[in-house]
Protein backbone atom coordinates (compact mmCIF):
# COMPACT_ATOMS: atom_id res chain seq x y z
CA UNK A 1 0.00 0.00 0.00
CA UNK A 2 0.87 3.66 -0.13
CA UNK A 3 3.68 4.63 2.21
CA UNK A 4 5.25 7.95 3.04
CA UNK A 5 8.62 7.79 4.77
CA UNK A 6 10.26 10.73 6.45
CA UNK A 7 13.87 11.19 7.55
CA UNK A 8 15.51 11.89 9.84
CA UNK A 9 13.39 10.89 12.80
CA UNK A 10 15.16 13.36 15.07
CA UNK A 11 17.45 16.31 14.50
CA UNK A 12 19.25 18.34 17.11
CA UNK A 13 20.83 21.57 15.90
CA UNK A 14 22.46 24.62 17.38
CA UNK A 15 20.53 27.81 16.93
CA UNK A 16 21.61 29.39 13.65
CA UNK A 17 22.32 26.10 11.90
CA UNK A 18 20.27 24.91 8.98
CA UNK A 19 17.85 21.98 9.06
CA UNK A 20 16.36 19.75 6.38
CA UNK A 21 13.75 17.01 6.53
CA UNK A 22 12.99 14.69 3.63
CA UNK A 23 9.81 12.94 2.64
CA UNK A 24 9.63 10.01 0.21
CA UNK A 25 6.56 8.30 -1.17
CA UNK A 26 6.35 4.79 -2.57
CA UNK A 27 4.07 6.07 -5.34
CA UNK A 28 3.47 9.29 -7.24
CA UNK A 29 1.50 11.88 -5.33
CA UNK A 30 -0.98 14.46 -6.57
CA UNK A 31 -0.06 16.98 -3.85
CA UNK A 32 2.09 17.15 -0.78
CA UNK A 33 1.55 19.19 2.34
CA UNK A 34 3.69 20.10 5.33
CA UNK A 35 2.53 20.53 8.90
CA UNK A 36 4.25 21.68 12.09
CA UNK A 37 3.33 20.42 15.52
CA UNK A 38 4.74 22.25 18.51
CA UNK A 39 5.29 20.23 21.69
CA UNK A 40 1.90 19.70 23.33
CA UNK A 41 0.11 21.24 20.37
CA UNK A 42 -1.75 20.05 17.31
CA UNK A 43 -0.55 19.90 13.71
CA UNK A 44 -0.72 23.24 11.92
CA UNK A 45 -0.88 23.50 8.15
CA UNK A 46 2.20 25.16 6.64
CA UNK A 47 2.00 24.78 2.89
CA UNK A 48 0.81 22.71 -0.05
CA UNK A 49 2.84 21.85 -3.16
CA UNK A 50 1.07 20.74 -6.30
CA UNK A 51 3.34 21.02 -9.32
CA UNK A 52 6.27 18.85 -10.28
CA UNK A 53 9.52 20.56 -9.27
CA UNK A 54 7.67 23.27 -7.35
CA UNK A 55 9.60 25.38 -4.86
CA UNK A 56 7.90 27.63 -2.32
CA UNK A 57 9.37 29.85 0.36
CA UNK A 58 7.99 31.13 3.61
CA UNK A 59 10.56 33.43 5.21
CA UNK A 60 13.33 31.03 6.36
CA UNK A 61 11.46 27.91 5.20
CA UNK A 62 11.94 26.47 1.71
CA UNK A 63 9.72 23.67 0.46
CA UNK A 64 10.42 21.55 -2.63
CA UNK A 65 8.41 18.98 -4.52
CA UNK A 66 10.41 16.54 -6.61
CA UNK A 67 10.18 16.29 -10.38
CA UNK A 68 8.64 12.83 -10.14
CA UNK A 69 6.22 14.01 -7.41
CA UNK A 70 7.40 11.23 -5.13
CA UNK A 71 9.58 13.19 -2.76
CA UNK A 72 9.68 16.51 -0.99
CA UNK A 73 11.88 18.44 1.38
CA UNK A 74 11.57 21.19 3.93
CA UNK A 75 14.66 23.29 4.60
CA UNK A 76 14.95 25.82 7.40
CA UNK A 77 17.73 28.36 7.16
CA UNK A 78 19.34 29.66 10.36
CA UNK A 79 17.09 27.87 12.82
CA UNK A 80 15.62 29.66 15.80
CA UNK A 81 14.28 28.24 19.06
CA UNK A 82 10.77 29.00 17.78
CA UNK A 83 11.32 26.34 15.09
CA UNK A 84 11.24 23.58 17.71
CA UNK A 85 8.59 20.98 16.99
CA UNK A 86 7.76 18.00 14.81
CA UNK A 87 7.42 18.52 11.08
CA UNK A 88 5.11 16.17 9.20
CA UNK A 89 4.70 15.76 5.50
CA UNK A 90 1.40 14.47 4.15
CA UNK A 91 1.20 12.97 0.69
CA UNK A 92 -2.15 13.17 -1.03
CA UNK A 93 -3.36 10.66 -3.59
CA UNK A 94 -6.92 10.07 -4.73
CA UNK A 95 -8.07 12.50 -2.03
CA UNK A 96 -6.48 10.39 0.71
CA UNK A 97 -3.87 11.74 3.08
CA UNK A 98 -0.77 9.72 3.98
CA UNK A 99 1.12 11.29 6.84
CA UNK A 100 4.84 10.75 7.20
CA UNK A 101 6.36 9.64 10.47
CA UNK A 102 7.56 13.15 11.27
CA UNK A 103 10.91 14.73 12.05
CA UNK A 104 11.34 16.08 15.54
CA UNK A 105 13.52 19.18 15.57
CA UNK A 106 15.24 20.40 18.69
CA UNK A 107 17.10 23.71 18.60
CA UNK A 108 19.67 24.48 21.27
CA UNK A 109 20.06 28.18 22.08
Amino acid sequence: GQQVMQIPQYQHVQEGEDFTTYCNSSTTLSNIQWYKQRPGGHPVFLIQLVKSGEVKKQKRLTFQFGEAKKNSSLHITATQTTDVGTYFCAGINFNKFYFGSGTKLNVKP
Partner: protein
Amino acid sequence: SAVISQKPSRDICQRGTSLTIQCQVDSQVTMMFWYRQQPGQSLTLIATANQGSEATYESGFVIDKFPISRPNLTFSTLTVSNMSPEDSSIYLCSVETADYEQYFGPGTRLTVT
Protein backbone atom coordinates in the same frame (compact mmCIF):
# COMPACT_ATOMS: atom_id res chain seq x y z
CA SER B 1 -8.85 28.43 7.35
CA ALA B 2 -11.14 27.05 10.05
CA VAL B 3 -11.30 27.29 13.81
CA ILE B 4 -11.98 24.00 15.53
CA SER B 5 -12.78 23.26 19.15
CA GLN B 6 -12.83 19.90 20.87
CA LYS B 7 -14.34 18.78 24.13
CA PRO B 8 -13.13 17.47 26.47
CA SER B 9 -9.52 18.55 26.23
CA ARG B 10 -8.49 15.63 28.40
CA ASP B 11 -10.05 12.88 30.44
CA ILE B 12 -9.09 9.95 32.59
CA CYS B 13 -11.47 7.03 32.22
CA GLN B 14 -11.82 3.58 33.66
CA ARG B 15 -11.53 0.55 31.43
CA GLY B 16 -14.83 -0.74 30.12
CA THR B 17 -16.44 2.69 29.97
CA SER B 18 -17.06 4.89 26.93
CA LEU B 19 -16.13 8.49 26.16
CA THR B 20 -17.67 10.76 23.55
CA ILE B 21 -15.48 13.48 22.08
CA GLN B 22 -17.08 16.48 20.45
CA CYS B 23 -15.69 18.50 17.55
CA GLN B 24 -17.14 21.88 16.58
CA VAL B 25 -16.10 23.94 13.54
CA ASP B 26 -16.75 27.64 13.03
CA SER B 27 -17.84 27.16 9.40
CA GLN B 28 -19.60 24.56 7.31
CA VAL B 29 -17.28 21.89 5.98
CA THR B 30 -17.91 18.77 3.97
CA MET B 31 -15.03 16.60 5.10
CA MET B 32 -14.23 15.94 8.75
CA PHE B 33 -11.71 13.41 9.96
CA TRP B 34 -10.85 11.71 13.22
CA TYR B 35 -7.24 10.81 13.98
CA ARG B 36 -5.39 9.12 16.78
CA GLN B 37 -1.86 10.11 17.77
CA GLN B 38 0.28 8.31 20.28
CA PRO B 39 2.83 10.56 22.02
CA GLY B 40 5.80 11.11 19.75
CA GLN B 41 4.16 9.27 16.87
CA SER B 42 2.54 10.20 13.60
CA LEU B 43 -1.14 10.60 12.91
CA THR B 44 -3.32 7.56 12.29
CA LEU B 45 -6.60 8.15 10.52
CA ILE B 46 -9.52 6.46 12.25
CA ALA B 47 -12.35 7.46 9.95
CA THR B 48 -13.81 10.08 7.67
CA ALA B 49 -17.07 11.58 8.89
CA ASN B 50 -19.39 12.73 6.11
CA GLN B 51 -22.59 14.58 6.77
CA GLY B 52 -25.65 12.62 5.81
CA SER B 53 -23.93 9.28 5.44
CA GLU B 54 -22.13 6.71 7.53
CA ALA B 55 -18.53 7.28 8.42
CA THR B 56 -15.84 5.55 6.41
CA TYR B 57 -13.44 3.63 8.63
CA GLU B 58 -9.79 2.83 7.98
CA SER B 59 -8.35 -0.64 8.26
CA GLY B 60 -8.11 -1.67 11.89
CA PHE B 61 -10.95 0.55 13.10
CA VAL B 62 -14.56 -0.54 13.37
CA ILE B 63 -17.83 1.23 13.96
CA ASP B 64 -18.71 -0.77 17.06
CA LYS B 65 -15.54 0.44 18.78
CA PHE B 66 -15.48 3.99 17.40
CA PRO B 67 -19.02 5.09 16.51
CA ILE B 68 -19.12 8.49 14.83
CA SER B 69 -21.95 10.95 14.38
CA ARG B 70 -22.08 13.83 11.90
CA PRO B 71 -25.46 15.48 12.36
CA ASN B 72 -24.60 18.66 10.43
CA LEU B 73 -21.79 20.43 8.56
CA THR B 74 -20.22 22.00 11.66
CA PHE B 75 -20.25 19.22 14.24
CA SER B 76 -19.13 15.65 14.78
CA THR B 77 -18.63 13.25 17.66
CA LEU B 78 -16.36 10.27 18.12
CA THR B 79 -17.10 7.72 20.83
CA VAL B 80 -14.40 5.44 22.16
CA SER B 81 -16.34 2.43 23.42
CA ASN B 82 -15.50 -0.22 25.97
CA MET B 83 -12.14 1.39 26.59
CA SER B 84 -8.95 -0.41 27.46
CA PRO B 85 -5.53 1.05 28.38
CA GLU B 86 -4.48 0.54 24.73
CA ASP B 87 -6.97 3.26 23.78
CA SER B 88 -4.95 5.83 25.73
CA SER B 89 -3.94 8.38 23.13
CA ILE B 90 -4.59 11.83 21.76
CA TYR B 91 -7.66 12.02 19.55
CA LEU B 92 -7.80 14.81 16.99
CA CYS B 93 -10.51 15.94 14.67
CA SER B 94 -9.70 17.81 11.52
CA VAL B 95 -11.51 19.44 8.64
CA GLU B 96 -10.55 19.74 5.02
CA THR B 97 -11.02 22.92 3.04
CA ALA B 98 -11.82 23.17 -0.63
CA ASP B 99 -8.05 23.44 -1.27
CA TYR B 100 -7.41 20.12 0.52
CA GLU B 101 -5.76 21.87 3.47
CA GLN B 102 -6.42 20.22 6.81
CA TYR B 103 -7.04 22.14 10.00
CA PHE B 104 -6.84 20.29 13.27
CA GLY B 105 -8.60 20.70 16.56
CA PRO B 106 -6.56 21.02 19.77
CA GLY B 107 -7.01 17.33 20.54
CA THR B 108 -8.42 15.27 23.39
CA ARG B 109 -5.88 13.53 25.61
CA LEU B 110 -7.41 10.29 26.83
CA THR B 111 -5.95 8.14 29.58
CA VAL B 112 -7.58 4.81 30.34
CA THR B 113 -6.79 3.23 33.68
